[in-house]
C-alpha cells in the first residue's frame, strides 16, 4: 500500500472500488444499502409478496457497549439519508446522538433533527441496542418505516466516531413488525 505525504491532484480523483476515509474529520464514508426485504419464511411475509412488515431494521457494525471494543463515553453522531418507493413515499433525513455510559453501560440514542416532511419525529423511527450479540457484542440498530413493496429504495448511513467500527462486524437488514424489537 502506498503511503503518500501531502498530495495535490490536479484533476479529478475517483475511488472506483473502495472508499475515501477522511480520518481527520472522524466521519465515516456514506454506507449504501438497499431498502427491499424479500426474505421468505418470516411469517410468510415478504416485500416481494406485498405483505412485508412496515419497519426496516438496519443492524450497524457499531458496538453498543462500553467494553474495550465499544463506545463507552464516546458519543457519536449517526446520520441517515434515504428513500423508499419510486415516488419517495418514505423519505429519511435524520440525525441522532448515540451514547453508551462508561460506568453502568446504559445505552441512549437521542434524535437531534429530522427533515422528512411526511414522517418527521415519527414513532416509526428508532435507534436501539440489539438484544442479541453479533461477533460477541450488542450492536446499534436503526429503525425506519418502509412500504410493503420491493420497490426501488436506498439508504445512506454514516457516523462520526472512528471509522474503525465501519468494518467491525457485518451489516444486516431485515423487516420487523416492531420499532424496538428485532435484532
Amino acid at each position, binding site marked *: 500500500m502506498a503511503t*503518500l*505525504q*501531502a498530495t*495535490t491532484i490536479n484533476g479529478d480523483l475517483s475511488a472506483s472500488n473502495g472508499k475515501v476515509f477522511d480520518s481527520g474529520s472522524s466521519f465515516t464514508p456514506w*454506507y449504501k444499502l438497499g431498502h427491499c426485504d424479500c426474505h421468505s419464511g418470516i411469517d410468510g411475509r415478504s416485500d416481494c409478496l406485498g405483505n412485508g412488515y412496515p419497519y426496516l431494521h438496519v443492524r450497524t457494525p457499531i458496538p453498543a457497549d462500553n467494553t474495550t471494543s465499544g463506545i463507552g463515553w464516546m458519543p457519536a453522531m449517526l446520520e441517515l*439519508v434515504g428513500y423508499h418507493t419510486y*415516488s419517495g413515499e418514505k*423519505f429519511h433525513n435524520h440525525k441522532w446522538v448515540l451514547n453508551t455510559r462508561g460506568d453502568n453501560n446504559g445505552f441512549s440514542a437521542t434524535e437531534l433533527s429530522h427533515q422528512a416532511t411526511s414522517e418527521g419525529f415519527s414513532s416509526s423511527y428508532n435507534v436501539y441496542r440489539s438484544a442479541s450479540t453479533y461477533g460477541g457484542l450488542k450492536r446499534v440498530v436503526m429503525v425506519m418505516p418502509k412500504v410493503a413493496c420491493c420497490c426501488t429504495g436506498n439508504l445512506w448511513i454514516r457516523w462520526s466516531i472512528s471509522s474503525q467500527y465501519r468494518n467491525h462486524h457485518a451489516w444486516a437488514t431485515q423487516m420487523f413488525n416492531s420499532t424496538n424489537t428485532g435484532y
Partner: protein
Amino acid sequence: MATLQNSTITGRLQITGKLKQINSDVSNWQVLSHCANGTDTTPVYAGGRLHVRTPIRADNTHLGWNPIIMEVRGYHSYSGEATHNFMALLNSTGDSNNTWYGNQIRSDSGHNSLPLVYQSTNTYGGYKRVCFSVTKVGCCCTGHIWIRFWNNTSTAPYDYAWATEGRGDSQGSLSAPF
C-alpha cells in the same frame, strides 16, 4: 492518469477537480454563486428567484424508476435573508411514456427559500434537464448555493454544464427560463 491501489495520505489531500466516491454513490458538492444575471429585471441582479439548471437529464436516460435525491444548501445576503436546505426526489417513469414526476420536495427546513423543482422546457445537449428555483434577494449581495446528488451519481452529475439565471417570478408563477 495514475491508478493507485489502497493508498494512505498522511497529510492534506487537495483536489483541484472533483472527488468521485463511486461506491457510496454520493456526489461531491457543486458550489454556485447566488448573484446571477437576470433577463427580465432591472437592474439585472434584482430578481425574485434564482433558477439553477443542473446537469441531470429529466428523463429516463438518467432517472426512470431509479430516483436521484437532490440536496441543496445555501444562503443569500449578508444576513441570510434567504437560506436553503432541502432535498427533492427526482424521478421519471421508466416505461415508454417517460413522464417527469414533477416537483417532489421531501424535506425542507430553509428560511424564505420556497424551493421549486421542474423540468426544463428546452433541451441542452439533446435532453431536458432538472432545474430548480429558490428565493433570492434583490441585491448582488454575497450568497452561495451548494448542490449534491444521491444515487446514480457516477456520471449523471457531470453530464452537462450548470447554469444560473435570476428572474422576477415566484414559486407559484414559473417563468421557466431554461
